[in-house]
């Protein structure tokens, strides 16, 4: 099913189709852009559907710009239409972090990524889905994309979840321990005073797994 694109956009190809949104690579005013469109859902009454798509579109566009202001590379937001639920943003051409994991510069990238995430967090923003696929090396710049699950938050737990997601993806690598160390060194250098608390929480999440903790809490209560 092809979605309707904003006026003036020509689809080159669809990059990603999820449950909530379609991401298309398009040509717009002579340049390559990415259009993210939040799909209208027939199961929601239109009032609620409009509200959900509108508020998420606005939030995502806002997060992309706020992150940029905080010194984190993100796609440029060119145009937003909350009513139709789309964002036109710059296309970040490059390689995902995943495909770079065996390259000699990888440890250095991981260290820089730590610094970038620290900067993001110190600005009170969490990414919400910090997988390697959402980190792009474009030229010599590391760019964070897809803030669809992001939010403004200074909660230690949410920041720790970001880091936990990222370092979990490093687990299969043989130099895992040194990579994590590099990441956290980078993070510490820019995340400010909350870094220590966040790091402690990351360790705690690792110990509890996703659900173990709740279960333990219940058991100790009963």
């Amino acid at each position, binding site marked *: 099913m092809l979605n309707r694109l904003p006026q003036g956009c020509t689809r080159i190809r669809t990059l990603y189709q999820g449950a*909530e949104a379609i991401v298309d690579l398009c040509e717009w005013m002579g340049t390559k852009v990415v259009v993210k469109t939040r799909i209208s859902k027939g*199961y*929601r009454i239109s009032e*609620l559907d409009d*509200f959900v798509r509108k508020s998420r579109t606005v939030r995502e566009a806002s997060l992309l710009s706020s992150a940029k202001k905080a010194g984190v590379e993100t796609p440029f937001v060119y145009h937003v239409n909350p009513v139709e639920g789309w964002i036109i943003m710059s296309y970040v051409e490059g390689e995902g972090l995943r495909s770079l994991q065996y390259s000699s510069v990888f440890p250095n990238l991981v260290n820089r990524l730590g610094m970038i995430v620290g900067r993001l967090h110190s600005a009170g923003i969490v990414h*919400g889905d910090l997988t390697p696929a959402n980190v792009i090396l474009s030229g010599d710049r590391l760019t964070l994309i897809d803030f669809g699950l992001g939010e403004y938050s200074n909660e230690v737990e949410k920041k720790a979840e970001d880091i936990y997601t990222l370092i979990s993806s490093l687990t299969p690598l043989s130099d895992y321990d040194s990579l994590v160390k590099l990441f956290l060194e980078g993070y510490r250098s820019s995340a400010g005073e909350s870094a220590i608390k966040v790091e402690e929480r990351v360790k705690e999440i690792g110990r509890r797994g996703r*659900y173990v903790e709740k*279960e333990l809490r219940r058991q100790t209560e009963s």
Partner: protein
Amino acid sequence: MGERLTCIGIESTAHTFGIGIVKYHPFQILCDVRRVYRPVSGGIHPSEAARHHIEKAVEALEEAMSRVDLKQVDIVAFARGPGLGPCLRVGAALARMLSLKLEKPLVGVNHAASHINIARALTRAIDPVVLYVSGGNTQVIYASEGKYVILGETEDIAVGNLIDVFARKAGLGFPGGPKVMELASKSRRLLKLPYSVKGMNVSFSGMLTMLEGLVGKEPVEDLCFSLQETAFSMLIEVSERAMAMLGVKEFIIAGGVGANARLRQMAGKMCEERNAVFKDYPIEYYADNGVMIAWEGIIQYMLGEKLNVEDSMVKPRWRIVDVKPPPSGLYEN
């Protein structure tokens, strides 16, 4: 599987005391007896519900025996958890007694897995994402490679709990589901309530707080309508996200909240829009019952599960991730 098995299943996790008898293969329901506890005021009081179950156990068993000769029974199953301890112990006691009396193996089954498997037996769903919604549970579950995986769940209260507590505050009685559904159908006015979806998790406590504050200030029909539309949209959204992530084309709902027609309608619509199939079944099997316990008893028995009476204590906090799903081929013929 040449063997033919008959299992008696006893359900007593919460408000329902149920006895079901199922035969396999082919799958056949031989009897389904239920006695439902209705609190005079407030929600479920565990000890009162347990007393209700004790009082009704004998007559329920007699009714089952009037339909099926217990000499046919090969397995005795009971819901071992999760649930309310005092209630669980009533069913467990009856099951132990029957197992000893009939000299048949005792199997303790998981209530959530039982809901899922009765739904699968009735719909022949081969590879579904399951939305499990009841008074005490809200989870998105998938059976993968020999284990159940919880993909998403509530971060605070269950959706059934949201409905029941709201209904109580609004003076609608317990259980709130049917009454809320009826009143909701009389309104089209949406009040803005917190729509709280985070990844594949949901949260309802903010919505409950807000609704409680609006009781008496806004028409109760509008409150019911807004609750249903908002909460159910959240549930269907996270279910769809799980289906998209896994590339799954079947969807089932299990648990008592599935009896709500609006929730099932939304499920149908969501599946239609993504070329998937919502597999629906008769609403009486969404509610707690003994049949599902009997069917899960047969599955677990075939997987080699058996309990000694002395090791058969109940497990009120038993999570489905620690249970084995049926072999993948079970629903394919």
